[in-house]
C-alpha cells in the first residue's frame, strides 16, 4: 500500500495548497483595503500620452487627470457649459478691424508643474517650477510642428501664422541639419513662433484668430492645449536610458502618473502641489465641488449633496488594470473588484430589466447611469467608386437609397447592443445644435417594396444588372478580422440579400485594407465617430470635400464631395448657434438625406454602472474624465466584497472523494490478483 499512500498524500497536498490559495479571489493587497483608492480598468494600452497627440479614451483617462487645461466643462450643467480652470475667467472674443478676433487668457497664479527630474535643465535642484504663459505657447507650437504629428493641427488653422510657422520650421530643418538637431523649444524660438500666439507677460496669453470661430474655445478645454514644460520634451527624448515624453507626462493636474506599465496597469497618485490643494489659495471653480446641485442628481444618487463647495480631489489613488476581454472585466465588476463598469451585451439581461436595474442588482446598491453619447455610427459608401459612388450619377444614388431602405438599425441594436442607442436619422446626435427630434429620414425607414422599386429604377432589378444580366456584386471591406465582428457584417449582408444584392465581406489584414483604401478599391465600410466638442461642425466636417480620404487622407472616408454641401458647411462652420445656422444645417441635412453617402445607423447610448460605495459618479458624456469629483467609501466596499465572494467548496471535496473511491477498489483487486 505504500505507493497508493504516496499518491494520496500528494493529491492531498495539492488539494490543500489549492484550498489555501483559494481562500479568497480578492486581487488586491490587504493593506490597501481601507484606503481611498478607485479601482478601474482599461482595454487598449494608450499609444501615447503626449497631450499634443493623444486622442483616444485610453489616453485621456491619464492625460485628462495629469494635465490641466485653461477651461473646463462644468461637472453638472447640461447642456455643456465652459468654466475657467487654469484661466481666471472664460475670455470673450475681441473683434479686430480686419475681421479677425482675439482672446486674452489671464492665467492663475501659483500653478506648479509636478516635481520631476527634467527640471534640472532649468532649476539647479531639479524640483519643479511655476507655469508661465510661455508654456502654453510652447504646446501650441508643438501642435503646429509637423513632426509632432498632432491629429488636431487642422483645427487650429484659424490661429494667425499657424500654418506659416509649420512651413518655416520644416524649411529650416530641411536646410540645416544642425538646426534640426536642436531641442524643440530652441527650434521654435529661432523659427519665430506662431504670430497669433502672443505671450503678453508671464500670466497673460493672447490668441489671435484670422476669422471668427466660436468653437475655438472648446479646444482650450481639451488636453491638447495644456501647458507643457520645454524641459520635459528636451529631457525625455528616449536617449541615454531616458523615456520618451510620450511615456512620461509632466503636467500640473490633480493627479500624477506614478506607475505606467501600459500593457498591464497604470496608477495615478494624488498631486499634493496641485493649485487646488495648496493652502492659502482662493477657491477656484476648477478645484471646488459645484455649490448649486440639481435636486434630481441627488435623488438619483449620481451626486452627493454634502460635497457642495468642498475642495477637490477626494481620491488618493486611481488604479487602472488592463482588461483585454469584456467578460472577465464585467464579472470582476460584479464581484466588486472594479468600482465602475460598462454594461456588456452578454450580461445585459441579468443587470437591466424594463430599462432599469434588475431587482437583484438594485438590492446590491448598484447604480445605472444612461447617457446618449454625442456619436454617430454609420455604413459609408466610397463615393469615388464607379458603381456605388458619384460617378454612377442617378443610378448610384438610387442604389444607395435602396440599400439604405433595408438596413434595420433597430434590429441591429437589439441583436448586438441590447437596444442601447438612439436610431439615427441624420449624422447629428441628440444634444447637438441642429438635432431635430421630430424629423424622420424617409430613407431610414424600413421599406422593402420601395427599395426594390428604386433598385429597379437604378437598373438592377433583383440585383441583376439590366444591361448585362449579370448579378451585381459589391464588396464590404473591413480591417477587423475577428470572428465576432464577422457576425455583425453578416447581419448587413443578409439585409441586402433580400434585395437580391450580392455583397461579399472582405475582412483583410490591416496591410491589405490599407492598400485597398489607397487604391480607392473599397465600396462599403462601417465607421463610428464620437464628438470632441459639442458642435455640429464636429460632425459635418466628416463629409467635407477637403477632408476626403482620397484627396488629403482626411477622415472623410466616404470621399463625399458635393459643392453645394461644402458651401453651406463653410458658411455654417463659424456661426453662433442662431436661426441662420439652423437653416443652413437643415439644408445640409436635406442634401445628405437624398445623396446617401452614409447609411446612418445609431447614436450610441452608454450604460455606466457603479457600485454603492462610489460617490459622485455622474458621467460626463464627452470623453473627459471626472475622477477629481469622485469619492469612494472603502469600508462599505470591503464589507460587500467579502459578502459577495464566498467560494463554493463542495465540488472540490466531491472530486477528492471520487478519486479515492475510484482508486481503492483498483488497488484491492490488483493485490488480490498478485497474491
Amino acid at each position, binding site marked *: 500500500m505504500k505507493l497508493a499512500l504516496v499518491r494520496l498524500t500528494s493529491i492531498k497536498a495539492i488539494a490543500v495548497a489549492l484550498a489555501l490559495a483559494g481562500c479568497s479571489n480578492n486581487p488586491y493587497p490587504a493593506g490597501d483595503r481601507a484606503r481611498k483608492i478607485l479601482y478601474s480598468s482599461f482595454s487598449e494600452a494608450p499609444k501615447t500620452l503626449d497631450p499634443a497627440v493623444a486622442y483616444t479614451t485610453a489616453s485621456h483617462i491619464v492625460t485628462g487627470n495629469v494635465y490641466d487645461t485653461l477651461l473646463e466643462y462644468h461637472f453638472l450643467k447640461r447642456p455643456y457649459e465652459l468654466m475657467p480652470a487654469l484661466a481666471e475667467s472664460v475670455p470673450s472674443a475681441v473683434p479686430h478691424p480686419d475681421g479677425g478676433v482675439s482672446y486674452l487668457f489671464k492665467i492663475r497664479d501659483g500653478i506648479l508643474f509636478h516635481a520631476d527630474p527634467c527640471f534640472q535643465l532649468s532649476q539647479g535642484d531639479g524640483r519643479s517650477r511655476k507655469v508661465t504663459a510661455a508654456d502654453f505657447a510652447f504646446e501650441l507650437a508643438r501642435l503646429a510642428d509637423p513632426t509632432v504629428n498632432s491629429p488636431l493641427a487642422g483645427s487650429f488653422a484659424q490661429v494667425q501664422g499657424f500654418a506659416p510657422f509649420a512651413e518655416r520650421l520644416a524649411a529650416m530643418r530641411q536646410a540645416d541639419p544642425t538646426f534640426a538637431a536642436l531641442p524643440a523649444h530652441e527650434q521654435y524660438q529661432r523659427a519665430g513662433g506662431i504670430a497669433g500666439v502672443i505671450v503678453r507677460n508671464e500670466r497673460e496669453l493672447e490668441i489671435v484668430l484670422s476669422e471668427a470661430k466660436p468653437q475655438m474655445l472648446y479646444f482650450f478645454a481639451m488636453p491638447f492645449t495644456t501647458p507643457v514644460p520645454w524641459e520635459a520634451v528636451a529631457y525625455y527624448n528616449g536617449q541615454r536610458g531616458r523615456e520618451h515624453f510620450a511615456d512620461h507626462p509632466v503636467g500640473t493636474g490633480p493627479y500624477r502618473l506614478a506607475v505606467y506599465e501600459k500593457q498591464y496597469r497604470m496608477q495615478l497618485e494624488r498631486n499634493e502641489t496641485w493649485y487646488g490643494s495648496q493652502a492659502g489659495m482662493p477657491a477656484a471653480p476648477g478645484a471646488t465641488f459645484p455649490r448649486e446641485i440639481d435636486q434630481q442628481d441627488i435623488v438619483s444618487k449620481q451626486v452627493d449633496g454634502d460635497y457642495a463647495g468642498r475642495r477637490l480631489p477626494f481620491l488618493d489613488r486611481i488604479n487602472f488594470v488592463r482588461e483585454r476581454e469584456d*467578460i472577465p472585466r464585467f464579472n470582476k465588476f460584479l464581484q466588486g473588484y472594479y468600482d465602475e463598469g460598462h454594461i456588456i451585451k452578454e*450580461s445585459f*439581461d441579468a443587470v437591466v430589466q424594463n430599462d432599469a436595474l434588475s431587482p437583484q442588482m438594485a438590492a446590491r446598491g448598484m447604480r445605472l447611469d444612461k447617457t446618449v453619447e454625442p456619436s454617430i455610427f454609420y455604413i459609408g459608401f466610397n463615393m469615388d467608386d464607379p458603381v456605388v459612388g458619384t460617378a454612377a450619377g442617378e443610378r448610384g444614388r438610387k442604389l444607395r437609397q435602396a440599400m439604405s431602405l433595408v438596413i434595420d438599425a433597430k434590429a441591429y441594436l437589439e441583436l448586438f447592443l441590447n437596444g442601447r442607442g438612439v436610431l439615427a436619422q441624420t449624422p447629428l446626435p441628440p444634444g447637438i445644435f441642429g438635432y431635430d427630434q421630430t424629423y424622420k429620414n424617409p430613407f431610414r425607414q424600413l421599406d422593402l417594396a420601395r427599395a426594390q422599386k428604386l433598385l429597379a429604377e437604378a437598373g438592377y432589378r*433583383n440585383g441583376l444588372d439590366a444591361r448585362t444580366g449579370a448579378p451585381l456584386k459589391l464588396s464590404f471591406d473591413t480591417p477587423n*478580422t475577428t470572428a*465576432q465582428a464577422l*457576425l455583425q457584417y453578416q447581419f448587413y449582408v443578409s439585409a441586402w440579400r433580400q434585395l437580391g444584392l450580392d455583397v461579399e465581406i472582405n*475582412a483583410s489584414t490591416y496591410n*491589405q485594407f490599407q492598400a485597398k483604401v489607397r487604391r480607392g478599391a473599397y465600396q462599403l465600410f462601417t465607421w463610428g465617430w464620437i464628438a470632441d466638442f459639442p458642435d455640429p461642425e464636429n460632425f459635418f466636417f466628416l463629409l467635407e470635400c477637403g477632408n476626403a480620404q482620397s484627396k488629403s487622407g482626411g477622415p472623410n472616408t466616404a470621399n463625399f464631395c458635393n459643392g453645394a454641401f461644402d458651401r453651406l458647411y463653410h458658411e455654417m462652420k463659424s456661426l453662433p448657434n442662431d436661426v441662420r445656422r439652423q437653416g443652413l444645417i437643415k439644408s445640409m441635412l436635406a442634401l445628405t438625406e437624398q445623396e446617401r453617402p452614409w447609411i446612418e445607423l445609431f447614436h450610441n447610448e452608454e450604460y455606466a454602472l457603479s457600485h454603492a460605495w462610489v460617490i459622485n459618479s455622474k458621467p460626463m458624456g464627452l470623453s473627459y474624465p471626472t475622477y477629481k469629483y469622485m469619492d469612494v467609501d472603502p469600508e462599505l466596499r470591503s464589507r460587500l466584497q467579502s459578502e459577495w465572494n464566498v467560494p463554493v467548496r463542495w465540488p472540490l471535496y466531491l472530486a477528492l472523494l471520487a478519486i479515492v473511491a475510484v482508486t481503492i477498489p483498483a488497488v484491492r483487486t490488483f493485490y488480490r490478483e498478485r497474491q
Partner: protein
Amino acid sequence: MLVVLLLAGSVWLARVVSRDRFWRENASQLWRRRPIALITLALFVGIGLMDSIGWVGGGTPGDDDVAALRSRTLIDRLFQPERITESSYSAPLASVSFYGGQPLTHPGRHLLGTDILGRDVVYRTAKGVRVALLIGGFTSLIVIPIALLFGVSAGYFGKRIDDAVFFLMTVLASVPSLLLLIALVMVMGRGTLQVCVALGITGWVHFCRIARGETLKLREAEFVDAARALGVSDLTIIRRHVLPNIAHLIIITFALSFTGLVLAETILSYLGIGLEGSWGQMIDQARNELSRTPIIWWNLTGASLGLFALVLAVNMIADALRDIIDPRTRREGQ
C-alpha cells in the same frame, strides 16, 4: 475540381489497398478494432463531400431569386438556410424565440437551436466539416508530395542533397511552428488558400524528416542493394521499393498532423486569422455567450462536438493503425 481529384485519389487508394495483401489485412483489422471511429470519419467525409458539390439554379419551390442565382451545395439544399432561419437566438427544439418569446417561423426544427443571426446551429456545424477537412486534408495534399520529394531524394541520394535538405529542415523546424504560421498568415494575408499554404509550409518538415529517416534505412536494405546490382534505375527503385515501404508511416503521420492542424485552427481563429465558417470561428463567436443569462450553450456545443468527434475519431484510428503496423508496439501488446 478539388472534389474530382479527391475522389480519383480515394478510388486509386481503394484499388491499391484491395490489391495488396498487407494493406487489405491491415484495413480489415482496423475495421474490426475501430468500427465506430471509421464510421464517424466516413460520415464527416460524406458531409464534407456533400458540401463540396454545388451548382447554380434548380432551387426548390419557394426560393427567392437570390438563392437560385448562387451556387449552392448539397448541404445548402438540404438545410435551405435562406428559408429556414429565425430572427435571433432560439434554444434547441424550442418553439419560441429565446429573447422576447415570439413564436418561431420553424418551431421545433432546430435540433441545436439558432445563433444570434437566427441561423440553424446544426447547419453551421455541418458547414464547418468541410472547412476542417480542408484544413487537414487540403494542406496534406500540398505537404505530402513536397515532403516526399525532398525527404526521399535526400535520404536516397545523400551527400550534398541530403545536407541541403537537412539544413532547410533544421531551419524551418527551429522556428516555433505556431509563430511561423502566424507570421506567414500576417505577411501573405488572409484567406483559405493562404492559411492552407502557411500550414503546409510549417507542416511539411515533420513529414520530410520521417521520409528521409526511413529512406536512409531502406537504402541500406538488402533488396534495394540487390535491385541496384541488377541495374534497376534509381527512379524505379524509389517507386517500386522505397515509396511502398514508407507509405504506412506517412499515413500515420498524416493522421496525427491532421488533428494537430484542425486544433491549431481554433487558435488562429482566436487570433483573428482563422478560416471563415470554421469551428474555431464558431467557438470564438460563442465563447462570450456563456455569460448570457440564461446561458446560451448550444453554439459552443455544436462546434465543440463537431471538432471533438472528428479529432477523436482520427486520433483513435491513428492509434489503432500504429498498433497494427508498428511491429514494436505489436510485440509489446502480446
